[in-house]
């Protein structure tokens, strides 16, 4: 008996020790106290790298954005390019030569001077194959790029061919001290990496030699530093935000947004549609293991348009996203101010028109069931990824919408690897509902989706020649916008592609999820934008208000 009691005591002690260790480790994650004037929010995971040239994940990207000085920056609010370390810049008429004039008196955070040599070295470094910088691919032919520095204030970049949206590429190249890469410890951006504790936090401190001054002549950034806690738990993030530990949250899901709205209504903001799209499409690939009659439905424009007309997009936005999404009819969101086609004519919800279109295409109703001309009942599955509640809700709503046309739809949720296997390899699926994340407003970034030869041309990947005249037209217009030097020609080409897609419905666009964020009322200077990073794009201007 005595022995059993001892064992019991040991077990209890062990459990208590484990609990205590867990509590200590958990507390340690938030142990770093907030320094005066310091901003705080979270990173989902540890940054994979602090080397700005090798950034390939969102968390490293955040650190680079906060620490890296760049020649040009996209103003996330106006969506226009603005000079930063460069005082001015000029692109030659043929789009192959870019000349940057550097600001005078620039310094790195260690006090050393920043000249064109440092800028050229940083650009050359990302172009080197040995660096394996993801941004190098955006130069299309990085090996052929030449960088010259005729004087300490001038950098000239010679491109072997014109690159659409080249200015945006320089938004991603942090200028580092030549021959002294420091992984964020010596920077030309607003902040410098001061401390990093794996799985706990990254601490940044203000760059005392940052070039920019605030509107009142005060040196910026206003914040003394930034603490980025590494937390991958939305509940914990919200709890600590409500306690005042964190100052802002971006990318909130509609569920958590509503939760926050109930508890702290003044903190949440719905910024309207994002650049991202949610869409469904039918598998039109000849390689797909589908019955010929079924593929023929999917290849008929009338069938796709009827499906599109039967979907109540307002309900999808209202129910699946709790009102925090915007009905979508095009691959370019209204948030993309430059490229969105406001005159687009797209099929809207109209069940009568949908039924008439199906009848004209030879479909008929037997009772309430829809059949094709050969008597095959119209029955198919919509595939989506498991774990995404909004998509599964949308699929279930569409299931009922299409039942009104007599179509029998199965909703199938698969884990992501199984889904990708079917989409990219076996092509064994009928219809799919997924989303596309667009971080770049430039439509040229979507070439890999629209060119018929692309493996990401989802409804019929890797076509040897365009399968339909309208796909050939899309190919032509996308290539035209990629090569044309005239903005008006590019604009017309993209408008045409939007209209063809709206007419043919290869992708049936459903909603643009809204950008949902939360900002502590103590923070001043926040100007939320729909482009990433939504809340911190003007981090130099952010500061804790006097109430703190």
């Amino acid at each position, binding site marked *: 008996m005595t022995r059993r009691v001892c064992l019991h005591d040991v077990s209890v002690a062990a459990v208590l020790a484990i609990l205590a260790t867990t509590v200590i480790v958990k507390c340690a994650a938030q142990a770093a106290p907030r320094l005066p004037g310091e901003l705080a929010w979270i990173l989902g995971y540890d940054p994979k790298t602090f080397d700005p040239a090798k950034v390939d994940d969102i968390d490293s990207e955040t650190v680079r954005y906060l620490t890296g000085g760049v020649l040009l920056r996209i103003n996330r609010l106006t969506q226009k390019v603005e000079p930063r370390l460069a005082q001015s810049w000029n692109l030659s008429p043929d789009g192959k030569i870019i000349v940057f004039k550097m600001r005078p008196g620039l310094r790195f955070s260690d006090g050393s001077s920043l000249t064109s040599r440092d800028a050229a070295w940083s650009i050359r470094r990302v172009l080197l194959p040995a660096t394996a910088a993801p941004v190098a691919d955006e130069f299309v032919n990085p090996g052929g790029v030449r960088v010259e520095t005729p004087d300490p204030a001038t950098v000239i970049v010679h491109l072997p061919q014109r690159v659409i949206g080249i200015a945006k590429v320089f938004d991603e190249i942090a200028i580092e001290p030549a021959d002294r890469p420091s992984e964020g410890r010596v920077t030309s951006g607003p902040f410098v990496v001061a401390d990093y504790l794996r799985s706990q936090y990254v601490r940044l401190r203000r760059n005392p030699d940052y070039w920019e001054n605030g509107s009142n002549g005060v040196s910026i950034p206003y914040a003394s530093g930034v603490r980025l806690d590494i937390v991958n738990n939305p509940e914990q993030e919200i709890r600590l935000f409500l306690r005042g530990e964190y100052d802002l949250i971006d990318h909130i899901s509609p569920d958590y947004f509503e939760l926050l709205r109930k508890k702290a209504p003044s903190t949440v903001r719905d910024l309207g549609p994002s650049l991202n799209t949610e869409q469904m499409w039918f598998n039109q690939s000849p390689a797909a293991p589908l019955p010929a009659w079924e593929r023929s439905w999917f290849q008929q424009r009338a069938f796709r348009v009827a499906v599109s007309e039967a979907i109540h997009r307002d309900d999808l936005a209202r129910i699946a996203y709790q009102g925090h999404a915007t009905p979508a009819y095009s691959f370019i969101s209204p948030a993309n101010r430059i490229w969105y086609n406001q005159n687009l004519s797209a099929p809207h919800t109209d069940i009568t028109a949908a039924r008439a279109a199906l009848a004209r295409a030879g479909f008929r109703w037997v009772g309430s069931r829809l059949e094709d001309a050969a008597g095959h009942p119209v029955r198919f599955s919509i595939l989506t990824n498991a774990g995404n509640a909004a998509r599964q809700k949308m*699929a279930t709503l569409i299931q009922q919408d299409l039942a009104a046309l007599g179509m029998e739809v199965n909703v199938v949720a698969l884990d992501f690897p199984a889904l990708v296997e079917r989409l990219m390899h076996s092509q*064994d699926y009928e219809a799919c509902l997924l989303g596309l994340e667009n971080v770049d407003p430039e439509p040229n970034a979507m070439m890999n989706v629209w060119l018929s030869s692309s493996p990401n041309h989802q409804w019929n990947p890797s076509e040897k020649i365009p399968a339909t005249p309208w796909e050939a037209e899309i190919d032509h217009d996308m290539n035209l916008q990629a090569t044309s030097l005239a903005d008006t020609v590019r604009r017309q080409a993209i408008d045409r592609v939007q209209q063809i897609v709206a007419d043919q419905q290869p992708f049936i666009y459903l909603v643009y999820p809204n950008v949902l964020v939360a900002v502590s009322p103590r923070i001043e200077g926040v100007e939320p934008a729909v482009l990433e990073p939504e809340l911190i794009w003007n981090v130099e201007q952010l500061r804790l208000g006097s109430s703190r």
Partner: protein
Amino acid sequence: MNSHRLPTWLLVGLVLIAMAIVVRPGASYSRQNRDQLLTDASARHPAGTDALGRDRLERVSAALLLSLTGALAAAAVTTAAAAGVGTLAAFAGGAVGWMVMLVCDVFLALPWLFLLMMVRSALPLNTSPGHSAAITFLVLAALGWPACARAVYQGACDLKNSEWMLQARAAGLRRPQVVRHVVPNLLPLLLPQFLVCVPAFVMAEANLGALGLGIGEPLPSWGGDAARAR
């Protein structure tokens, strides 16, 4: 009423109530009322509606019936398989018995959740929700027998070495006759195994549903509805 019968009667009562709710005229667990989302309890919807405007009480009741029916059938299949395998291993003995139990141990070591996911992803996509539910429970049954078989094996070994069995064999009872006597003697062991499997399968299906991999819409599932309610 004996107190140990109370849970049985409660369960029977629940099933009867669920059946009454599901089969009453006008009931539909899948009908979406998009203007009545997440409503509170009312005379029309005694348990309110879910995020898609469907009656919660009808869905929970239908899910109970579906889940229980599936789990009972799967538990029956599992118990029968376990009885066969355990008895075979015990009475065959030697290399055959060892091999059978080795297979059993291998099955026990398999990560069942991943296996279920693999099987589910390999199913034809146009399988109807009803068939998909049946297949889900069939897969649960196919993966659930080894633990039960181990227990049956031990019980069958005890029977094999019992005095009455030795006497029966010494008296010239042939193998098929032996088995005929073994099965009724294993019933006290099989019944608890069967009853243990039922809630285990209900939970397994709910877990799959919570991961979004369970029974397909619009069929209701406790796990699926719980996942949507998060």
